[in-house]
C-alpha cells in the first residue's frame, strides 16, 4: 500500500520523545515513492490528453491523493522535529549538547542557528532597544540566593557584580538565583533545598 513508509516516519515520532537521528534513508524512500507516483501520473495524464482515455482518470486521482499524503508525512516529520529543537533552545540555551547535534542534519543545524539569531534580535529590541533576556526568570522567584551543589566540572563563572567563582564538581555555593537557573536546567548545578 502507498504511504506506509511515510506512516513509519510519523510512528517514529510518536514512539520516542527524544530527537532521534534524522531518518534520511526513510525520507529518501518516501521521496522515491512520490517520484514513481508522479511519473505514472504524468504518463497517464498524457494518455488522457492525447488519446482521450478517460478510464485512466480514477487511477490518476488515487495517486494524487497518495502524493499529498506522502508530502504531509514528510513535512510533519520535519516540523515536529523542529518543534522539539525549539524547546531545547529554551531549556538548554543556544548551544546544543553533542548528543543532540549528531542526530541533526545540516539543514536542521542551520535552522537552529537562524532561530537563535531571530530570538536574540527580538530580545535585544525589547525595552526600547535596551534589551531584555527572556531565558532567565523563567520560574516564579522565591529567594534571591539559592544553595547549589556543583555536579559537573564547569570552570569559571562570572557573576553580575564582577565576582568570579570556580565551579568544580562536588563543591557547594550560595549563588544568585537568576545565575543558577539555566545551569540547573542544564544539569551542571543541583538545587539543595533547605
Amino acid at each position: 500500500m502507498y504511504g506506509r513508509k511515510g506512516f513509519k516516519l510519523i510512528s517514529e515520532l510518536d514512539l520516542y520523545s527524544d530527537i532521534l537521528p534524522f531518518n534520511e534513508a526513510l525520507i529518501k524512500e518516501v521521496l522515491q515513492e512520490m517520484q514513481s507516483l508522479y511519473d505514472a501520473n504524468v504518463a497517464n495524464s498524457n494518455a488522457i490528453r492525447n488519446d482521450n482515455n478517460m478510464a485512466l482518470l480514477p487511477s490518476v486521482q488515487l495517486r494524487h491523493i497518495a502524493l499529498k499524503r506522502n508530502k504531509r508525512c514528510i513535512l510533519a516529520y520535519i516540523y515536529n522535529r523542529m518543534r522539539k529543537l525549539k524547546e531545547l533552545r529554551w531549556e538548554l540555551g543556544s548551544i546544543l549538547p553533542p548528543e543532540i547535534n549528531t542526530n541533526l542534519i545540516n539543514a536542521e543545524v542551520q535552522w537552529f542557528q537562524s532561530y537563535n539569531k531571530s530570538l536574540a534580535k527580538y530580545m535585544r529590541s525589547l525595552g526600547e532597544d535596551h534589551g531584555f533576556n527572556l531565558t532567565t526568570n523563567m520560574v516564579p522567584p522565591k529567594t534571591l540566593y539559592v544553595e547549589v551543589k556543583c555536579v559537573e566540572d564547569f570552570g569559571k563563572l562570572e557573576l553580575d557584580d564582577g565576582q568570579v567563582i570556580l565551579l568544580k564538581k562536588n563543591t557547594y555555593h550560595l549563588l544568585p538565583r537568576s545565575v543558577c537557573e539555566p545551569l540547573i536546567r542544564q544539569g551542571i548545578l543541583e538545587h539543595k533545598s533547605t
Partner: protein
Amino acid sequence: MACCQSYIPDYFAITDILSTEERISCKIEVELPGLGFLDSSCQSENLKVGTKVEFPLWLAEPLKNLQNSVVSVDIPKIYKEGYREILEADAEVIVLSKWNPFYYELGMHVRKFSDRDYEIITESLLQTFKSRFQLVMDWSQNAMSDPTLSIQLPRLERDLFLIGQQAKIRLVEWLKMGTNELVVSEITTNLKKRKREQYEFD
C-alpha cells in the same frame, strides 16, 4: 510551556496522521487501471469493479468523496448497532483501545460516510465519552495509578488521562513541599540517562 491547548487536528498533527492510517473496508466502484497490485489477492493489472479492498482512511475517504465515487465504504462494525448496544449497556468496562486505539478519531471520520447514521454515531460517541469520563478522571487523579492503564484507553481519552495525571502529580508535590525547587530540565535528565546506559553497554 506557557500555553497548553487541547488537541485539535491540523496539518502537522501526529495523532491525525496516525489515526487516518486505520484500514477501512471498501468496494471498488470504478475500475482502476494499473493498480491491481493494491489488492494482494488480485492477479490482474487493473483493480476491477466489485473488488473488496482494505484501504487506509486517508485514501478511502477522499476516493469516496470524488464526484463519482471510486469506492464505496463500509462503516466498521464497532460503530454499528450491535457494538453501540454494548457500549450503551456498560461503556466503562470495555477496553475501548482494543476495539480501536483511535476509537473516537476514527468514529468522527466514518460517521461522515453515511448521512443516515451521522447523528446516531455522533450520539453514541458522545454518550460513550460521557459515561467513561468519570473513569478517566478517577484514574488520572490517582497519581500512583498503574502506567499500563493508559494502554487501555483510546488515544483521545489517553491524552486526557496523561495530562490530568501530570497536573495531579504537580499538585501533590506542591501540597507536600510547598515552595518550588529549581529543577533540572527533563531533556537533560534523559540525556544523562542515555549516557549512563551507553556506558553500561560498553
